[in-house]
């Protein structure tokens, strides 16, 4: 136990307050996402993720959203086990024929209002797999889709950006805050 406490203290909080690697800067996106979730979803956006036949690359990056760097729960976003609890369906594809009905049933089980995001090149347009005897291709060929997050796979920061873009496109357009004005809400305290 002492080892764990020491490690926890030494590592501190790594959740990203600053731009990370390549891709969109989480320090700008995060507070906007939190704001949108707070206004539109009363502080809680429930996501049900469905793998409809992906290569599992997208799943690895969606899982990474929960690691301490992205810690997506701090913006009020959480992954739920049932589509009946979900506001948003996050679907990776291509949709295999063998998953076609399961995906449709999951979509139908969601309460209204509901949104659907197709993730990855495959979810967006079938990607490397396209349409074949075993693949329906893009997610929109099976259920209605409200937006896509491209990438193979999209990085966690791109996923955050894509979710924000879907729930409040206007917020994404807001220019980066002026350095002289108030800084974006600090995330350091969590």
């Amino acid at each position, binding site marked *: 136990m002492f080892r764990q406490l020491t490690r926890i203290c030494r590592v501190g909080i790594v959740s990203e307050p600053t731009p990370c690697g390549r891709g969109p800067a989480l320090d700008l996106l995060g507070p906007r996402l939190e704001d949108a979730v707070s206004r539109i979803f009363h502080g809680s956006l429930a996501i049900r993720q469905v793998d409809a036949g992906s290569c599992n690359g997208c799943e*690895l990056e969606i899982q990474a959203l929960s690691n*301490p760097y992205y810690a997506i729960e701090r913006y009020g976003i959480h992954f739920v086990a049932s589509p009946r609890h979900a506001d948003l369906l996050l679907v990776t594809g291509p949709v295999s024929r063998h998953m076609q009905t*399961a995906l449709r049933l999951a979509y139908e089980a969601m309460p209204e209002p509901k949104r659907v995001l197709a993730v990855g090149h495959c979810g967006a347009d079938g990607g490397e797999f396209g349409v074949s*005897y075993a693949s329906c291709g893009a997610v929109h060929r099976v259920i209605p889709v409200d937006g896509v997050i491209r990438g193979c796979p999209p990085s966690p920061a791109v996923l955050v950006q894509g979710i924000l873009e879907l729930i409040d496109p206007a917020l994404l357009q807001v220019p980066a805050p002026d350095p002289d004005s108030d800084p974006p809400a600090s995330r350091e305290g969590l």
Partner: protein
Amino acid sequence: MNDPMPAESGSGLPLYVQPVPPDSGRPERSSRPLVRQFVVAPENWARLAGDAARASWRWSGIWAEDRSPVLELSLLLERAGQYSWVRTRIPLDALRLPSQTSAYPAADRMERRIHDLFGLVFSDHPDPRRWIRHQGWSGEDFPLRRMYPTAGRPERSTPPDADYPFVLAQGSGVCEIPVGPIHAGIIEPGHFRFQVVGETILRLEERLGYAHKGIEKIAEGRDPQGLVRLAGRVSGDSTVSHAWAACQAMEQAAGLPVPGRAQVLRALFAERERIANHLGDIGAICGDVGFAFGQSQFGRLREVFLRLNDELFGHRLLMDVITPGGVRCDLPADGASRLLEERARLRHELATLRPALADNTSLQDRWCGTGILPGEVARTLGVLGYVARASGVDHDLRRDAPYVPYDLLEIRVPVADAGDVAARVRIRQDEIDISLGLMADLLDILPDGPCQSAWLAPQPGAEGLGFVESWRGELWAYVRFGTDGLIARYHPRDPSVLNWSALEHLITGAIVPDFPVCNKSVNGSYAGHDL
């Protein structure tokens, strides 16, 4: 496959198996596992399995190809780091063959798969139910036959596979728990049918095939670049290994030498893939027993690790870095020093985390004795990688059948006997440590020079087999070119194909709440299995 033919008595296979003279036109250019080719008459197919099993050959996989007017079936056996590739041919109008499943239980699902995709009937198969086919095509259609159109004959809506005949259990207090194909977490699709009494699992039956998207069919007619892109998406977590195996096979078929620098960089990528996956999985295995500290710490280490992949090589998971003839990106000027710096940091972190896991009694209580896979069962099922090594099977291609550049390195292979979740975690921790060492060794032997050779058009009909010890275990790919320099057949064999059956065995007698941690400790790829 171009190796000198040994004396018949030395082949280790019975005399009714005919050796194929090696193709002497092309000299062996690089070190790779020794593969000897044979043909056998169809009537001896089952007898061969019995004799080979008695002679301790390991069953590694089968694949088929429609070579109208015959179906060509290939079997790969391995013993002491040497492979035997045995083929047989069956007329397409009389597709029957005795099954090898009674001699090799590992053959069970692979034979059923070949039946679903090619229509070959394994006459005395103990379980003739369909496997990879759900309702996406009819029982009279066989998608991998040449005449079957790639687009298939799809219905507008594919019905669910509701009437699959699961094995039933009856008795006082026995009930069934159906789970999937959509699971509670962020994971791939598959169905598990548990039969339980109270919390205790009497039996688990897996039903896979949900992620089947016709990879083998859509590979046909691709050019080498197109194939390696597809191979990199057979299983996203093994993108380097599958791309490497496919490239090895294509390069072997074309007789294309790969620059030394590219060979070493490929191995560097493969070791990084191994470390990243083990880090993520150990974190998830902690998370599955509610140990949030471990999940956070290992998740953090994985993230830092992936970010360096992105910075140095342009992709977090290293997709598309391997290309036919070499690699697409060179190590940046400061790359070696940054990799060594990362290695030292990671070693230091793991040295403090490892005892934090080992000394945590409530954690070890959940891991030790959970999900035991006895060594004997692991051998019978032909299980691979860390799952096998945690059950006492001392096997690693990098050491036993070394391919370039591992022939230049000394590979330590960790083995444990307990076969439980704790042992699989321990093996994975050891493998991270060994791979970190190998990363430094690889940087030491990294030669200067180009990273890529220009593609060389292969002879019509040229074929190759590529072998990689992926992070999950032995992985190989078969490629045959057509007359036009395009792919005529591609079959990737992911280790998950053999490892999935281990889960059914090791979960028997465990409690339902231990299923997630047992599943994660094995971590089969649904995509890699379903293709």
